[in-house]
């Protein structure tokens, strides 16, 4: 103990620290997608949004020296991509799932294109709050270095939960998602509501991307995101479109994703790639358990094309 080694405890500790770190992008993307899907549209393009967010955050942080400006830029980029998605989907006979796939490829390509000069330089990173000051063990301190964005995400979840239930905007979004006819009868433009919901979703997903490039792993490269965006979209489905459940599910996912690196840090290297695939396997497993061909999912917005 005295020399800082805590033996096998390293693994659960690293999984905990990893859960907090790795879950943040999952959390932001799933909360964003939650808003979009509650309005009756699915945006599979958030994978591309995540990567674009990561790239623009890194670029702006590098150019301006302020990581928070980078976070803002990532959010705005995400909102613009969301507007593009909503704009194309508002055309007649256009399938929102297909547009999402297109924007996934487009966002990824654009981020790689624009991000080419950003692979070399080092940008200012986001600060972390040291909750582990009381401990002498470096692993504990490392696990408890928690980023502000994570705390913001944790705060957004209950706020969204509350907003969906009680605020006027929350009710409007849910109305558009449950019955576009009802929203139209009340004199609201469904397309307009969905545009804003998709932009808000893109904004949050972009911020999730900024976390990837500005905190963990904390650099920009083309392998930065491999499916976190799409996993987060799947996560919304089994979180039953409930922001609070999105929070718990993101934490579980972060833990699963941290398992591979955690085991590697104690010398278990065999099966490294398989452990890295844990979040995908977990998503698939949970979808298999929770979905059913007999009934539509409880809590699913009725207008959502993916559950019909």
């Amino acid at each position, binding site marked *: 103990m005295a020399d800082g080694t805590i033996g096998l405890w390293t693994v659960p500790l690293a999984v905990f620290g990893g859960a907090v770190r790795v879950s943040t992008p999952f959390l932001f993307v799933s909360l964003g997608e939650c808003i979009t899907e509650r309005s009756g549209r699915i945006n599979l393009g958030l994978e591309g949004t995540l990567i674009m967010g990561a790239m623009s955050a890194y670029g702006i942080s590098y150019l301006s020296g302020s990581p928070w400006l980078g976070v803002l830029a990532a959010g705005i980029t995400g909102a613009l991509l969301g507007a593009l998605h909503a704009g194309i989907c508002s055309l007649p006979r256009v399938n929102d799932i297909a547009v999402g796939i297109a924007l996934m490829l487009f966002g990824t*390509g654009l981020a790689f*294109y624009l991000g080419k000069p950003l692979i070399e330089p080092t940008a200012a990173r986001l600060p972390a709050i040291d909750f582990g000051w009381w401990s002498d063990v470096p692993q504990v301190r490392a696990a408890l270095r928690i980023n502000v964005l994570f705390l913001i995400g944790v705060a957004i979840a209950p706020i969204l939960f509350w907003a969906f239930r009680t605020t006027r905007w929350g009710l409007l979004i849910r109305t558009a998602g449950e019955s576009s006819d009802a929203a139209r009868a009340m004199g609201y433009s469904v397309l307009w509501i969905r545009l804003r919901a998709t932009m808000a979703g893109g904004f949050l997903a972009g911020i999730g991307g900024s976390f990837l490039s500005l905190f963990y792993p904390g650099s920009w490269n083309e392998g930065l995101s491999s499916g976190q965006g799409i996993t987060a979209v799947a996560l919304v489905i089994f979180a039953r479109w409930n922001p609070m459940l999105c929070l718990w599910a993101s934490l579980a996912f972060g833990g699963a994703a941290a398992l591979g690196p955690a085991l590697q840090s104690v010398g278990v290297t065999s099966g490294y790639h398989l452990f890295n695939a844990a979040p995908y396997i977990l998503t698939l497993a949970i979808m298999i358990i929770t*979905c059913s061909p007999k009934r539509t999912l409880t809590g699913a917005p009725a207008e959502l094309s993916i559950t019909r």
Partner: protein
Amino acid sequence: MTTEAADPVEAVAVSPAADPGFLQRYGTTIEYILIPGAALVGALAVFGIFVALFGKNPLDLYFYMYQGAFGTWFSWQNTLTRAAPLILTALCTALPAQLGMVIIGGEGALLIGALSATSIALAIPWAPPLVVQIAMVCAGVVGGGLWITLAGALRQYRGVNETISSLLLVYIGLAILNHLVEGVMRDPSSLNKPSTREIGAANMIGSIPGTDVHWGLVFGVVAAFASYILIYHTVFGFAARVAGGNIRAAKIVGLGVGKLILMICFLAGGAAGLAGMIEVAAVQGRTNANLAAGYGFTGILVAFLARQNPLAIIPVAILLGGISASGGLLQRRLGLPDASVLVLQGIIFVFVLASDALYGRIAFLKGKS
């Protein structure tokens, strides 16, 4: 007077009346060519503006793209070589689309197909080349086929959305490939790039005589024609299209929708798995992470651009093969990053989907005005 006045009007009405007949017969076909064509031109224009923002001359861009894709015999061969896997991975999206399913996991089926094909070739090194090749084709088709059948079965029996599950399976497939290639299947002499052992030069499928284009292109074209006949000229394909159009009607007339889903998914995955086998047996000679070159994802775009029609996939795959073939020239001559091909593909995809709104709305194709 009134009859005389009516006559010229009628005459005017009659002379294009021959045209509406023509348009009624071919109007939809013209639409299917005209609208994606216009979307393609629009996308190229936007991409031109995009590179112009970075200080490159768009005319140079178009010239080098043409040069790199179709300008010389060499670039034609490069294009066709890339088109071969694209035809097959596009079928992986287009076949399930007949049933109304959106499968985007062709990349995963390609990787699993490649892995299965390599495994069988390494397992029977003593067999004559033809036997090895046939075994590789079978293994590739079965491996890729089962991979996508998994997504289809999850949809049929558990109601899991096939778009998301097939994409998740891509990442799982890649992890399995990396795990095996860096583990039990690793060739100890592959130091920098972990790979399996080579399948051996004798077992490679080689090139079409007189060209550098490998036989994979023929595999792809045959598969596309076979799919076309299957979908449009067999009872099975008819049943699939009925089920895709109206699943309740299909159930009422007693079609086994579940069986259709599984079989179509197997064929779709088999096509992508065959693409993986070809990449191993005609290009790489072994399995490693190089195989995840994005053919599966470009194949999705090919399928959508071809409007899920197996025959239209062939020219579209050649076109997109050309675009990716020109990437190298754009990099060398214009200094564009290699991702520019991805950007262009993304723009094309967005335009093609947005152009869906135009169908049935072009006035002169309706044969009325």
